[in-house]
């Protein structure tokens, strides 16, 4: 814990984690376990669970949040910056190359056919990924009502998702206050 980890080391380690992560932030967890706990022994498993939980409920991409938190633990603000830039660098390079490539071939009949099939698969993957979200997010009648209200408000009024998030957080705080007022 006390040994000094260089900024470059942080950057490279998180770049490696970025390369090995496929998909959402959840996919990052086993990779971080292997790289930071087992191989480098930078953090404990308990630390990782705490950081990861915090990263999920704070705004932003989970992977970036986790990288910032972990980087900060090692080298404060510059550590957070190095770890975050590390985790995004492979994405920027790889996606830019692919986008350049796709732009040239996107109109081809073949690409269109491939993506029509892939799109269905992506829809199935996301539907499948929804289940753990629901298990964590909709835990009682109150959260279910918030869920329904958000859906209805969005479809009828096309309100910005950001506004929905702020309103839901406020509603939950007010709900909590009301519960406290009620004599038991």
């Amino acid at each position, binding site marked *: 814990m006390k040994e000094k980890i260089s900024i470059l080391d942080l950057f490279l380690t998180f770049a490696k984690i970025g390369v090995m992560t496929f998909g959402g932030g959840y*996919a990052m967890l086993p990779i971080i376990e292997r790289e930071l706990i087992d191989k480098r022994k930078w953090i404990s498993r308990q630390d990782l669970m705490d950081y990861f939980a915090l990263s999920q409920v704070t705004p932003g991409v989970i992977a970036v949040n986790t990288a910032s938190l972990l980087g900060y633990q090692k080298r404060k603000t510059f550590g957070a910056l190095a770890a975050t830039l590390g985790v995004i660098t492979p*994405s920027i390079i790889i996606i830019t190359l692919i986008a350049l490539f*796709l732009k040239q071939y996107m109109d081809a009949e073949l690409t269109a056919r491939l993506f029509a099939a892939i799109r*269905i698969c992506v829809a199935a993957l996301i539907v499948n990924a929804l289940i753990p979200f629901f298990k964590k997010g909709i835990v009682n009648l109150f959260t279910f009502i918030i869920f329904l209200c958000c859906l209805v408000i969005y479809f009828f009024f096309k309100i910005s998702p950001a506004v929905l998030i702020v309103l839901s957080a406020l509603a939950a705080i007010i709900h909590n206050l009301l519960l406290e007022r009620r004599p038991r």
Partner: protein
Amino acid sequence: MILHLILYWEFFKIGLFAAGGGLATLPFLYQLSFKTGWFTTAQIADMIAVSEITPGPLGINMATFSGFNTAGISGGLSATLGIITPSLIIMVIIAGIMHKFTGNKYVKAAFTGLRAAVCALITIAVWEILKIALFNFPLYTKTSDISDLPLVKNIIFFILLVLLLRKIKVHPAVFIFFSAVLGLFVKF
């Protein structure tokens, strides 16, 4: 230059408000697509596919890709830097004061509401992608014939995939790869 600043700002907002990982950025991307026309909803679906099968966190890949579609290589960079800035600032602040708030009941309550809202937002995102993957809304609007709406072959394939995904635990990229191969032989 102005476009890059707008891109940075739009993705800064996504980074600020999308809680819960790459999927949570989807509703914001759809909104951006409706508002600005920088990319189409079909392009978003393709970007998800590419982001899933390439290395890197989903949210970051999506940001780079959307930025690229809007303003080329430097656009990808602007969008990506935009989406990470709020995270960096917020996490550095939180890391500094973390121990003080972990037990606060109002913070806990706020998160309960926030998580429920995230579920709703992702449901909306799923609906947007189902709309293009499984239904032919453009044709239906033209003909007003309800039998033109569902793409039966696509719906069957979709249901099969959902069932398979629950049974077989392999990397999502494997499913995407085999779907693409199937796309070579079957026209969806």
